[in-house]
Every structure is written in structure tokens, then in C-alpha cells.
């Protein structure tokens, strides 16, 4: 079969791959995106939908801030509002000691020049989240944060990428990567593709792509669980997260409440399947029971988990390959990559197309695992 050709092959049709492909197309770069299932099939389509700058690792904050600017004009970018709405994210402190720790963090961010996190007292917490249990003394808010519909968002990026000229090959699996002249030959289940550059945005499968380059990474396949309840009367606007106990909590516009927070199911990545752990979901249910008494009689209608990648230090791998010129990595977002999709894609497209970027990505390089 004659090889397809492109300037760049993007591997993976999650929000990161689709965003990078769109931003490459916007720069006039001929791009083919290869996805083994369909766009948004895994974590990008079934995550909690939090669009959160709050409580991020310092190394991610520049990408997060750049992403936030894109989220705020998401309809202009992808032609769909993606269900994005902004009512802030609130990190609730459950004790005075916890609140003191939050204060240190907010002060540290200020010294670094980041002002999006704001310490709040009990009065402001109860104003923002009236239903929260009275034992909580305060918290931190990031007021521009919000939530979006994850599958719709990923599909919107995919659709706009196609409109801008990206070829999206779904149900096509990458089976090999090899040098060809100064570029790359990407072997797939639908024939070879020749391209100058390759972006590895393969999520929970990205370690296999890296391994093809002789660049093994300690990637852990995880499947964070979520539950959704039946509709209940509107009682909470912001997304609520906890630090001490694992919880993220938000009410959607239709009244359903999504409960997450990072308790893990057992993933079977070769079968696209997960097995839920009801013991851990019980822990989630108890946390909600204590924090939001109003939720006690709500009905849980569905629980699920999406398959994704976690790195040992819980921050992603973003940047050029350490072994293979012309290959770039964008994976390992460790259960908090959805918000980062728009900005990381823009940054990655800039890096791939021009060889440089002004967005700081220090600390995210793949080489950190060789040390």
C-alpha cells in the first residue's frame, strides 16, 4: 500500500491529541490523527469534566492558565460551547489545620506571581456552598474555574480539527515507529504513514509508543471512578473538592450530581474495560453523606471509570522525546488533564511547528525519569 504522508502524525484521539491536531491545522500544518478506538472513547470522554486551575502542581500552572484563556473563548475556538460554565472551584478545608496548610500554599503561589487561588473564610465558604456541612472552617476558591461536558468537548475539538483539514483515522492502531530519512514512518493497522514529526498523545497506551522509541517510561494505567445521581433540586454552583479525603463533587445544569475524586477501578487496557471497586465507592458515598446531608436520599444511577495514565510524580510528560528527534510527548496527565487540553494543544502545536515555545514546561520533560 502506498504510504499516506503528512507533516505531523498525532497518535491518540483524546482531548490532547484532538487539541494539538486542531492547533497544528490552524498553523497550516498537514496533520493526520490516528486513534485506535474513537475520539473521546476513554478518559477524555468520561472524566468528571472539571475545568480547574485550583490546586495544581506549580509545573502545570502555566499550561493551566493558558488553557483557561482558551476555555473562556471555547465556542470561538471549536464552534461549540462544550457545555462550559464557570462558577468556580472550591477546595473545602475540613479542619483548622487543613486550612492553615491551604494558607501556606496560597501565600507561596502569590510569591511566584500566581493569583488565581484565593483563601476564603467560613462565611464566604457558606456563601459559595450553602449546603456544605458546618464543620468546615473555610477553603480556597479559584473563581474562574468551572466545568464542561467532556465527551462533547473532545468531539468538538475533533470536529473542528477535521473542518480545518486534519485527517482523523479512527479504529486504526499504531503498530510501529521507525526512522525514515529525516522523518518518521508510522506503521498502522491501516497502512503506513510518513511524516516529518510525531506527537505521542496516546494516554494510557503512550508508554507503548515511547517503548517503540527505546524510551521506556514508568506509566501506570489507572481508571478513576465516578458516580452520577438522579436529578435533585439545584443546591450548589461551584465544583467542590477535598484534599484530605478523595472527593470532587459537582451539580450539573440538569440537576444530576457527579461524584468523583480519584478512587480507582481496576483497568484492563487491552480490553477497553474496567471493573469498579464498590468498597471504594462506598467511601465516596460516606464522604458525601457527611459533607452534604442534603444528598443522603439521592439515588445513584450510574458509576463508571475511564482509562488513563498516571506518572509516578502525578504530573504529565510534555515536550520533545529524549531519544528521537522530531517526536514529542503529551501524556500522563494523571487524572487531571482535561482542563489542560486546549492550552497544551496550542503550546504543543507551537513547539512542533516552530521548534520553540514561550510557555514554560520545565519539569515536565520525559528525561526526569532517567535520573
Amino acid at each position: 500500500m502506498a504510504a499516506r504522508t503528512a507533516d505531523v502524525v498525532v497518535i491518540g484521539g483524546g482531548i490532547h491529541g484532538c487539541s494539538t491536531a486542531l492547533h497544528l491545522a490552524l498553523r497550516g500544518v498537514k496533520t493526520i490523527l490516528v486513534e485506535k478506538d474513537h475520539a473521546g472513547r476513554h478518559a477524555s470522554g468520561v472524566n468528571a469534566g472539571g475545568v480547574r486551575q485550583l490546586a495544581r502542581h506549580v509545573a502545570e500552572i502555566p499550561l493551566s492558565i493558558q488553557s483557561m484563556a482558551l476555555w473562556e473563548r471555547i465556542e470561538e475556538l471549536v464552534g461549540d460551547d462544550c457545555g462550559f460554565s464557570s462558577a468556580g472551584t472550591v477546595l473545602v478545608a475540613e479542619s483548622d489545620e487543613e486550612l492553615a496548610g491551604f494558607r501556606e500554599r496560597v501565600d507561596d503561589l502569590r510569591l511566584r506571581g500566581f493569583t488565581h487561588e484565593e483563601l476564603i473564610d467560613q462565611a464566604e465558604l457558606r456563601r459559595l456552598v450553602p449546603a456544605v456541612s458546618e464543620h468546615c472552617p473555610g477553603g480556597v476558591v479559584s473563581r474562574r474555574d468551572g466545568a464542561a461536558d467532556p465527551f462533547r468537548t473532545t468531539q468538538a475539538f475533533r470536529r473542528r480539527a477535521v473542518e480545518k483539514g486534519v485527517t482523523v483515522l479512527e479504529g486504526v492502531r499504531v503498530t510501529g515507529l521507525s526512522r525514515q530519512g529525516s522523518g518518521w514512518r508510522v506503521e498502522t493497522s491501516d497502512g503506513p504513514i510518513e511524516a516529518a514529526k510525531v506527537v505521542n498523545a496516546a494516554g494510557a497506551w503512550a508508554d507503548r509508543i515511547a517503548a517503540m522509541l527505546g524510551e521506556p517510561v514508568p506509566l501506570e494505567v489507572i481508571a478513576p471512578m465516578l458516580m452520577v445521581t438522579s436529578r435533585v433540586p439545584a443546591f450548589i454552583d461551584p465544583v467542590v473538592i477535598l484534599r484530605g479525603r478523595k472527593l470532587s463533587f459537582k451539580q450539573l445544569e440538569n440537576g444530576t450530581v457527579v461524584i468523583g475524586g480519584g478512587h480507582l477501578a481496576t483497568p484492563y487496557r487491552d480490553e477497553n474495560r474496567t471493573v469498579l471497586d464498590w468498597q471504594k465507592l462506598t467511601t465516596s458515598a460516606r464522604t458525601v453523606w457527611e459533607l452534604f446531608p442534603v444528598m443522603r436520599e439521592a439515588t445513584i444511577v450510574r458509576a463508571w471509570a475511564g482509562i488513563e495514565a498516571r506518572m509516578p510524580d502525578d504530573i504529565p510528560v510534555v515536550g520533545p522525546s529524549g531519544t528521537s528527534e522530531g517526536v514529542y510527548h503529551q501524556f500522563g496527565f494523571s487524572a487531571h488533564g482535561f482542563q489542560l487540553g486546549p492550552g497544551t494543544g496550542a503550546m504543543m502545536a507551537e513547539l512542533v511547528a516552530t521548534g520553540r515555545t514561550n510557555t514554560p514546561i520545565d519539569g515536565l520533560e520525559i528525561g526526569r525519569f532517567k535520573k
Partner: protein
Amino acid sequence: MNAADLSSSYDLVVIGGGPAGMAAAALAAKAGVSTVLFDENPGLGGQIYRAIGASPVTQRAILGDDYWAGEPLAAEAKASGATIVTGATVWSLDPQRLVGVSIGGKARLIQARRVIIATGALERPFPVPGWTLPGVMTAGAAQTALKAQGLLPAGRTVLAGNGPLLWLLAAQILRAGGRIEAMLDTTPRRNWLLAAPHAPDFLLSPYWSKGLALLREVKAKVPVHRTATVAAVGEGKLAEVLYDGGRIAADLLLLHQGVVPNVNLANAAGAAHQWNERQLCFVPVLDADFGTTVPGIAVAGDGAGIGGGTAAAERGRIAAIAAVRALKPDAALPNPDNVRQKLQREEMGRAFLDVLNRPSDALRRPVGDTIVCRCEEVTARQVRDTADMGCEGPNQMKAFLRSGMGPCQGRLCGLTVTELIAEQRGMTPEAVGYYRLRPPVKPITLAELASLPIAEAERKAVER
């Protein structure tokens, strides 16, 4: 029995107390296997033998001999030594056979070495215009009220659709002294021609004489109109039923066009399913002992493909024999060949019934503003338009329309959505596929889940 009284593990968990579940539990318990049977209803019986032993309808002729055949099955199950827990809702089953169950508002996780799913059938969606109006319900729901509470339909009642259960319900209502304004028979005329090649088997089966008698009994008392269309109309509640060339004022419309396997639990457990073109539904992929593609999990009864109540009991026995053999190889067991022969006899004539009662395409694949998913109020036009936009399957459709994401978990819309996408995109239902169902397969409250014993939770977390 309370949730706290259950053991944390059983050799065999049987889910569903209809004929398949009762027969399976009885056989396994008698063979000395520790067996628990869960059913969410207040008593045993399933749909076909609902409220057997507890029904206020005591005049035997009303519900008929086929109903009372459930009595010995229930008695056998109760005497077998199996632990029978009614009012127990199974909301989760995973591939390691961990069963999530709720009893009296308290949840438990029970480990099973083998599982037999005997959750039977549910009524095929019948999405005609106006089917969500108050005053329109399924024939099955009306039959439940009759069996369990002795309630007869009140007001002017019209039955519409096809299939043996619709005629049986009509006869039961009439025998109990109820009144039916009209039957609207939606069996496509050409079905009789298509079914003819299967007639010889059918003539040898017990269905033949029973079915004929039922038709005569109903036709003698109720006007029957053939029609290809049915619509319910009314402002806020049912006022009239429209059909080809006529309209009838009505207070109650009972709809029915056959039953299909309830695949939710097996699907959520990860069992593979395939499209059955003759029965127009998804059925689990099963081996000769009704074992699914998930080791240790079997599906017996109508959940394995529609075969009827008497066949269901034999299927339950076959699945139970396989389970006992795996658990306790030296146990004394009935000869499986005899059971298989009985099953074969009971399944005779099924092909004729399937083809004769195949609902028309138009009544399975609605158009326009007819509601498809009633939980989320999604119309046929929305589903068709979204398929045209490029949406390839029911799981992607969820994200666009939320169809199938309400509390019923697709029980009322799943097949309709698959068939509409298939028609719109020129694909087979097999290729389109079905919802990936997420537990809990039955809704549970946050309080119930929070009630799961934590000591047990921690112990299990260590074991796994």
C-alpha cells in the same frame, strides 16, 4: 432476612426468582451446594408466576393452569435448603462474581463462586405517538396489578399490539369480570406467510391448542381490529386511541409487542452479547450449559433468549447442573440429557411464534416527535438526526442526547435507539451494538451505598 444475616460468600448466587431461578436454586441446593436466591419482589414467581402463593386472585380459572404451574416450582425451591431472599435488589455484578445487593435499605457485597442470572425478560419498547401519556401503560404492568393486587383495569380499556401475552391478559381480564372495548391487533399480515414454514413444529407443540383457544375466547367477547398503526392522543391524559381507519374513546391503553431478554446485569458484568435477528433483540453469547463469556456466570431463562416459562425452568436446571458439577464434582445430579430433551420439547414451536409475532418495522422504529427515551425525553427525530450527523452507536449517542442515561438505564429505549441508528446509517444492529451498561444496574440511594459494612469493605480490598 436482613442484609446483615447473609454470609459474605456463597457457592452459588441465583439472581431472579422466576421459573429459571427457582428451578436452578432448588436443584443446586438439593445437591448440597450453598445457594442463595435474590429476588427484588416481595415473593417468588418472577413475572410469569408473580405473587404465586400470595395472589389475591384465588379462582384458579382466572389466571389459568399455566400460572398455577408455578406453585410446585416455588414449593420445591423453598423446601430445597436454598436461602431465599425476597425484597433483595441486585444492583451490581462484576466479572469476579462479586454481587452487590440491597435488602431493606442496606447494601451488602456477596462473593459467589458461581452465578446464575435469571432476570428474565422485559417488554419490548412500543414507542408509538402518545405512549408516554398518563393512561397508557404496558400490558405487563396491567398483568402485574392483576396478579399481585387483584386489580382490574378501570374505565374504557383498549389493548393494542401483538404476541401471546397480550391475548392472555385479555382473557384473564375477561375471566375476572373486566371489560375491554377493543383489541387492536398489529400483527403484520405477511407474518402468517413467513411463519408458515415453521408451522409443523408449532402444530406439535402445546402452544397450538392453547393459543387457538385463547384467541377464540377473546374474539367471542371483544371486537378485534387489524391495524398497522396505533396512536394515543389526549390533553394531559389519554382520551382516544387512533388506528387505521378508526378511533376509540379510551381511559386506558395497554400496549404490548412481545418480550425481550433483560440483558442489563449480564451486560454490566462484561458478558458478550449478539444480535438475534429472529427475535429482534440482543442475547448473551452462551455455551451449551448457558454459560456466558465471563467464567462462572451463566444466564438461564428468558434472559438467554425468549423461550417461555416452562423452557426457562429447564434452562435453569441445565445451568445449575453445570454449576454443581464445577463446585462439587461428586454430587448426585439428575441426568442432564433428560433435562435437555425436555427443554427441546418446550422450545418447539418457538420459531413459529417468533416469526408470527415479529412486530412491524414501523412500530419498532418510530419517526418524528415520538418519544424514544422517556427518562430524558428524547424524540425519534433527534436520534435519527444525530445518527445522520455521524454518531455511530448508542454509547456516543448518550453524550449528545443523554438517551439511555436516565434511571431506567436504557431498558425502555435501548433496542429502539440501536435500531434507529442502524436504519439511519445502513448498518446492522449487531454492528451498531448496544449500550455499555454501567452499574448500579438498579438505582440505589447514596445512603444505601454508604451503609455497606466498612470492615467488610476493607477486608475485601485486601483480599483482592
